[in-house]
């Protein structure tokens, strides 16, 4: 039988260290909704999403109450819309009408975000892909809960630099389209390299074409639990440090596995994967930066940060993999700036720069995330930042991403408030030297030599 101290340990993790299940995300394939008529397509996807996800929020809440574990978000991801709507949408306006339908479906089902307003263009863009990408600024300003992502490269295909250039422009245009809300639209837009098909986390979630009809993916979290565990072994060597992270990640993931299996059983939808991620929130004590500082860094951003993050990322995976039957998604540690109080503090005191964050993305689970930059940074520079991240992902066989917010009308030294889980961010300086000629070349960067594995 379970021992009382174990019961108290679990409840302390939940109540004091903010252990939670970050998201239950239902992936829904929209491929069967394909139609040549845009009106029919919109009706079909609305019915399919609201039908399959009808009980998603209710079931999530029931599990929450029965096990006493908070499930912060219930979300939906769908087939990349550029694929599903390839024959239905004839113009960027048609795509915007789909975004509105998705937003309506999100409101009806009660989920707080719906991802999959996406295009996968790692080697080239179809006409539909290009129209969807061009519609992103309007789609994100006209909707509340729709999230968009575009995959511009992969280790197998190289990087589509035409798409990178276009995304630089679209990030800027999205910022302008949502200027009155501090360019919030960009917080719902991610540019990927090596995007996973089963990521449950927003804004980059979509239901990949390799997936089945519907699936339940769960993202766990718990930076506060890891930090508290490390506080108990202060000054110990790396062996003890790594073992402690691993053991803690195991415990956190087991909770995710339980929630995922229960959700899958109750909803009658197969269980896909657990995403083993340490996802911070702006709440005090729920910080990945806090873990790195607990390891012995004076501030995140100091020399040693990349090594500390690398070991954290690796040990989280090692502990989590054994705790779950299927692991996938982004799995690792997230390092968003605005969603992590420790990161915000480090930026404000000058300890953390975009260049250091870029180095950290070589060893963390995703990429440059929730970083506010001045609104006057040119589109070509944003494209350059995207290209750099995509190159890191392509060469290192990992997922990388850029979710960057050029805040229109604001400059260095100012702050931007996104609210809720998205937090707030100080505006960070960007290297002022340009790369417009490089970005303007057009075409694609070939696949790296190590992609030829056959």
């Amino acid at each position, binding site marked *: 039988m*379970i021992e009382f101290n174990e019961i108290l340990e679990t409840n302390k993790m939940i109540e004091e260290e903010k252990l939670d299940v970050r998201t239950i995300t239902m992936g829904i394939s929209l491929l069967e909704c394909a139609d040549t008529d845009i009106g029919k397509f919109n009706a079909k996807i609305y019915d399919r999403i609201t039908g399959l996800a009808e009980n998603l929020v209710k079931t999530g809440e029931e599990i929450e109450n029965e096990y*006493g574990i908070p499930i912060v978000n219930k979300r939906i991801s769908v087939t990349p819309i550029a694929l599903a709507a390839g024959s239905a949408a004839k113009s960027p306006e048609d795509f915007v009408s789909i975004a509105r339908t998705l937003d309506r479906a999100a409101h009806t089902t009660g989920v707080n975000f719906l991802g999959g307003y996406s295009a996968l263009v790692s080697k080239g863009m179809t006409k539909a892909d290009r129209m969807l990408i061009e519609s992103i600024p309007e789609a994100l300003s006209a909707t509340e809960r729709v999230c968009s992502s575009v995959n511009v490269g992969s280790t197998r295909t190289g990087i589509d630099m035409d798409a990178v250039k276009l995304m630089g422009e679209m990030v800027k245009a999205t910022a302008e389209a949502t200027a009155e809300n501090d360019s919030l639209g960009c917080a719902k837009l991610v540019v990927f390299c090596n995007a996973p098909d089963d990521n449950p986390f927003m804004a980059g979630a979509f239901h990949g074409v390799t997936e089945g009809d519907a699936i339940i993916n769960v993202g766990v979290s718990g930076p506060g639990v890891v930090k508290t565990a490390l506080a108990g072994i202060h000054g110990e060597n790396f062996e003890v440090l790594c073992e402690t992270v691993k053991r803690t990640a195991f415990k956190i993931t087991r*909770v995710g596995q339980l929630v995922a299996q229960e959700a899958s059983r109750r909803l009658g939808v197969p269980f896909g994967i657990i995403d083993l991620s340490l996802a911070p929130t702006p709440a005090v004590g729920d910080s990945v930066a806090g873990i790195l500082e607990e390891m012995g860094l004076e501030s995140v951003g100091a020399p040693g940060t990349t090594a500390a993050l690398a070991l954290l990322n690796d040990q989280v995976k090692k502990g989590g993999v054994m705790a779950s039957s299927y692991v996938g998604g982004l799995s690792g540690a997230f390092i968003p700036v605005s969603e992590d109080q420790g990161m915000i503090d480090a930026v404000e005191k000058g300890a953390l720069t975009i260049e250091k964050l870029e180095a950290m993305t070589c060893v963390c689970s995703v990429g440059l995330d929730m970083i506010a930059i001045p609104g006057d940074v040119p589109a070509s520079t944003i494209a350059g930042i995207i290209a750099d991240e995509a190159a890191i992902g392509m060469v290192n066989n990992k997922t990388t991403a850029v979710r960057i917010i050029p805040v229109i009308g604001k400059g260095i030294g100012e702050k931007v408030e996104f609210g809720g889980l998205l937090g707030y961010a100080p505006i960070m300086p960007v290297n002022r030297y340009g790369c417009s000629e490089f970005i303007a070349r057009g075409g694609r960067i070939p696949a790296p030599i190590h992609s030829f594995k056959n």
Partner: protein
Amino acid sequence: MQRTIITVTGKDTVGIIASVCTYLADNQVNILNISQTIVDGFFNMVMVVDVSASPKSHGELAGGLSEIGEKIGVKILCQKEEIFTKMHRV
């Protein structure tokens, strides 16, 4: 057997155990194990109970216990056992 864990925490006062146990008995919930301590006036109790004979659902029991907790000024949680066994047992 359907095991559920009830944890009660808060400022010590007269009749905490009595109120909780009366409610459980009234709802055919069988107590399997109890551990209770008081440190510096702070009451801490963990109960392992079997709810399989109870006519009430988990949600109803949890709601009822939570109401009692509010009346006597303590926090009462009611959680299915699996969250603990999954986390601490391989």
